[in-house]
Structure formats: structure tokens, C-alpha cells
């Protein structure tokens, strides 16, 4: 990808000239768009996920890992370990924070093993993933356990899958060339997300999934 080939807004040229990396500008401009996208999915479609913060972070972790497949793999491993460890730790009856700490330890160890393993297989793609996106994803464990305790396994897995779906969609949205070109050329359009969110915030219609959920009532009336 050759950055200079973009047609660019003068403000951005100014930023670049002061030494802010292009990638940083791009991600920061993308943030309000992804956030609005998640808000839209919640209010209009009805996809709940783990709030707004987690899917947003995971999306950016995906963007920062080398290719989305490693991101998804790490995500799924974290959730699987979360589930297995819950069963394993059940009989110990531990308090909340120590339990999360143990899970974090196991997840961290596992990822370390995975990195070493993929390195030895000369699959450098995974081994060269920078550590911050991995750390961000590990914090997913806490979210997952909290929901597990409050609402049970099924709800936790359901919300985790929703989070994964949103993050994948968010990833493709943020990697969409046309959109990137557009915000690079018109960076101020991110301000449009504010009125858009005001509309979303006042939206009182049924969510798409509620049409499904209440289908029987609609059929009957």
C-alpha cells in the first residue's frame, strides 16, 4: 500500500508533516466510525455483544495483528480456555478476582506456547504479531467470566460469538479501501457520526431481532 498515492485532505498532510504516522491517523479517524457502527448494530439490529468497548478493542486488535485469521484464532482460544477453566476451577470455589487471575495466567501461558510453536514451524505470521493486540484480547477473559457468572455459560458464549461477529465486520469495514480513501480526503465526516448517534440514541423502534423474538405476537394480532 503506497500512502502517498492517496488524495489527501490538507489537514492530514499537515499532520503527516509534523511526524504523526499515517497508520495512527487512519486508526484514530476510524474509531468513531466503528463505534457508531457498533451502536447501530445494538440499537437497530439488536446485536448485544460485550458492550461497545470490547468489540471496539477487538476490532482494533484484529487490525493490528497480521491478518485477521490470527486474531480470530487467538479470540477462539481465549474463549475455549475460559470455558474449560471454569469447569476445571469449579470445585475449588474461588473468589472472583483470584479466579480471573488464574485464567489470565493460563491464557497467557497458552499463547506463549502457541507463539513458540508457530515460530518453530516457521509460521512467522503469528509469532511476529505485536504484543499489545494480544494483551488487549487477553483482557477479554474477564468480560467473558463476568458474563458467565452473571448469566451462565450459554449467554457468555452467545455474547462472545456476537462480539466476534461484530469485530470481524468492524475489521472489514475499517479495511475497506473506499472508506479509507474517503475519510482521508474528508476527515471531518467523522463529525457526522455525532448527529447520527443522536438519531440512534432517540431510536425507539423495534430492533430487527425483536421482530423475530415477538414474531408470534405479530402473527397472532
Amino acid at each position: 500500500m503506497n500512502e502517498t498515492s492517496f488524495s489527501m485532505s490538507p489537514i492530514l498532510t499537515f499532520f503527516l508533516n509534523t511526524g504523526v504516522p499515517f497508520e495512527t491517523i487512519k486508526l484514530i479517524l476510524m474509531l468513531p466510525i466503528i463505534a457508531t457502527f457498533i451502536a447501530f448494530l445494538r440499537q437497530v439490529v439488536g446485536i448485544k455483544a460485550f458492550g461497545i468497548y470490547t468489540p471496539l478493542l477487538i476490532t482494533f486488535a484484529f487490525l493490528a495483528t497480521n491478518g485477521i485469521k490470527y486474531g480470530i484464532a487467538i479470540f477462539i482460544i481465549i474463549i475455549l480456555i475460559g470455558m474449560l477453566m471454569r469447569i476445571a476451577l469449579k470445585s475449588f470455589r474461588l473468589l472472583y478476582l483470584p479466579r480471573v487471575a488464574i485464567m489470565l495466567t493460563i491464557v497467557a501461558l497458552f499463547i506463549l506456547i502457541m507463539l513458540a510453536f508457530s515460530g518453530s514451524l516457521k509460521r512467522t505470521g503469528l509469532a511476529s504479531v505485536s504484543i499489545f493486540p494480544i494483551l488487549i484480547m487477553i483482557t477479554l477473559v474477564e468480560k467473558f467470566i463476568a458474563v458467565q457468572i452473571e448469566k451462565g455459560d450459554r449467554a457468555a458464549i452467545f455474547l462472545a460469538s456476537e462480539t466476534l461477529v461484530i469485530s470481524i465486520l468492524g475489521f472489514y469495514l475499517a479495511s475497506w479501501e473506499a472508506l479509507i480513501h474517503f475519510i482521508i480526503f474528508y476527515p471531518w465526516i467523522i463529525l457526522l457520526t455525532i448527529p447520527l448517534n443522536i438519531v440512534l440514541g432517540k431510536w425507539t423502534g423495534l430492533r430487527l431481532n425483536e421482530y423475530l423474538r415477538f414474531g408470534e405476537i405479530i402473527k397472532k394480532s
Partner: protein
Amino acid sequence: MFEFIKKSRGILGMNSRNLEYIRPYNRACAKKLADNKLLSKKILKKNDIAVPALIAQIKTLEDLDIFDWQSLPDSFVLKPNRGFGGEGIVVIYGRKKNRSDAWIKADGSIVTIDDLKNHTRNILDGSYSLSGIPDIAFFEERLKLLKLFKPYAFKGIPDIRIIVFNKMPIMAMLRLPTKESRGKANLAQGAIGVGIDLASGVTTTAVLGKQKIIEYIPGTRLLLSGIRIPYWMDILTLAVRSQEISNLGFLGVDIAIDKERGPVILELNARPGLAIQVANLDGLKGRLKKAVGIKIKTLKKGIRVGMDLFGGEIEEELEEISGKKVIGTVEKVKLIGKDGKEIEVEAKIDTGADWSSIDNELAKKIGFTETIEEFEKLKMPYEKLKNLDKEKRWEIYKNIPDIASTIPVKSSNGYTYRPMINVEFIMDSIIVSTKITVIDRSHMQYSMIIGKVNLKKFLIDISK
């Protein structure tokens, strides 16, 4: 598609619930009251509302250290103060025999003091509270299951959720714990929700979990519709009263019925769920919109208006639901007598009479001529008969053909004993097989009256 969206307008969705009902009608301080079970319990009790009795509370780890576990009764419930969705609740049914440090849970498993301590510690830690903030654990009286609900509820206690808005009951549902919900009356966990007709307190349609419409308790032939909730008026009164006290404009009240104490308030809910709509197969929003403009001055009026507006419209459905036929005060009846002799007559429905009766001539027409003539021939005076006991009296009449029994009947010239015969009759396509009194109704408008014993399968509509 357009039709579909139009039809869905009466349904309350999450967005609308939060923005149009919870936000404007439930003030922050009122919400705080609802989220704090101990506080709402205290305030309700102060206002003479029945709540489960508080046994003890543990506020800190120090409290936990010095807590005397032996002081707990044989059965109790351990709850987190700020818990929600029924999480973190432990129900103890009784002490384990021969052990001083263990109790038995709803599912029969054993709980030791150490288990309870650990659970309490988790509660104090905030594992079950709304936002993970440190919490208080408390013990309260375990309510006892009403006999009526026994076959319907798995382990736990069913409760009744009522949505109250503008001092009116808006919608109600009975929640039945199932095996899947592990004895908890929470739909999200797989309990059964059964809609209730507000006017009559009789159950209508049912949903299992969040979406599955059912008619019977899974795996049984227990019909979920037509259950008459006892203390219905008291329950509605409690619900509306608790709105007055709590100041929650849009309120979900959970009420359980204790075997001995009757209805008690379990919980106030500032963010009632939407599943009640599926249980009732009706939208909340349509009802809330109707309720919003009405000025309600008194509690009684609020209940009255709520019952009239949102209940009882289901008269034709009532037959299906209750399994009872709705009949008028005069009904066509096909009478089937001896040897299958049939005759159609108009009968008067008389809830003042215990037994049904027919005129002498009618009885003769359906084949009981001999019975009546033999009976009249004996000419036994009432004074003599009344002093005899049952066996002796039967001794006199038992040789009369086709007589079923005798019965004292009051008429204008005093008491007489009259014969009873076995007949069948068909009313509104229901076959009733019964003993019936034969009397002289020649001077009456209707040659047959139907009394209480034969009306159990019917509801009477005097305007019909």
C-alpha cells in the same frame, strides 16, 4: 411487509422501554430503592405490605466471621442484596439429618456451613451484583409452595409478575420454575411464563424460555391455560400499592403466594423484562399507550380500570381457556331418558338450586311413567318419612323400577319427598350424566331447571 410493521406497533421493544418508559417514569432514587432488596423490603413492610420475613444479614467479612450459623432455621433462602435475574440465590429446604453443619438444597444436594460461607463471601465481593460492586448477603424466610401450584412447579416457587403503570395493572404473567431453569422462576433461564387475563386472574397462553409457545408443561398433560390464580384481587391491590409506595412509574412487581401467608411481594423491578408480552401474546406498548392519559385517583379505580381495559376481552376465548362453556340463563337441552328416549326442551339455569329437576310429565315422556306412578301410589306422608333414617326410607322405595334415590323438596304446600332418576342430557354439546329430581312443574314456564351440581363445566353469562 408494511402490514407486518404496522402490526408490530403495539409491541414494546428494548429501545422504547429504556427511552420512553424507564427513563421518564423511573427516577434515579426510585430505581435505587428497587435495586436494593433490603431497603425495598423494609419500606414495603413499613407500609404494611406483606414481604418474606428477614432472618439475618451479613454486611461485611467481619460480620461473616462472627456469624452464628446454628442460629439459622431449618429452611431459609440466602440472597444477594443487589442481585438480579435470580442469580446468587440459594434455597435451603431443611437440615441434613444427624449433622449440625449441613443443610439440604432444593435439588437434594448437601450444603455445608463452609459452602454457605464461601457463597456469602462471593456475594460480599459483588459477584452477583448489578455492576460488581461489593454487596450485602441476607437470609430470609423460605416461602411455602401453594398446593395448587405443586404439579406445575419444579422445585422452586412460582411467582406472578405484574406490570404496573399509571396506577393500573397493565399485564400479568405467572412464572413457573422448570428443571431447565433449576427451580428458578426466570424466563431467561428457561422457566415457563404463562399469561394471565387481568380481569379474571385465569391463565391464558404460555411460553417456555424466551420464545417457545407451549400449551402443556413439557413431558406432561398438564394444561397451562385455565389455571385460576387465587387471591387475584389481593395480588392486583398489592401490585398497585407497591407502585404508590415505591414511586416507580413503570414497575414490574414480583408476587409469590405463600401457603400460609397468602400473597407476598418478592421484589420490585425498575427494568421489567419484555418476555411477558410473549407469554400473553400481546404487546405492552399498545396497552401502555391506552393507559397513559387516564386520570386515576384511587387505588380501587386504578385496578378496576386496568382490569376492564386490559382483561376480559377474551370472552369467546374464555371457553377454550377455562375449558368451560359459556351459557345463558335459558338453554336448549336434549334430554336422554330410558332406552335412549330423547326429547329437546328449554331449561332454566338456576344457580339457586342444588339439583336439576324435571316436570312429572316430561319424566313420563322419556320413559319413567312406571317409576312415577309407583312412587305416587305409595303416598307416603312427609312427616313419617322425615323421621326415618336413610336406609329405612330407601327400604320403602327400593322396589320402584328405575328409581335412583329420593330427596326432600320444598314447595308451596310444604315439604315432600320426591323421586330421583338417572338421566343424561346434552347442553351446549357437553354430555352430562346425572341424577335428577322429578317434581310437578306444570304451573311453571320451564319444564326443566338445571341446578348447581350440573353446572360445573359451564360459566353463566346473564346477558346472553
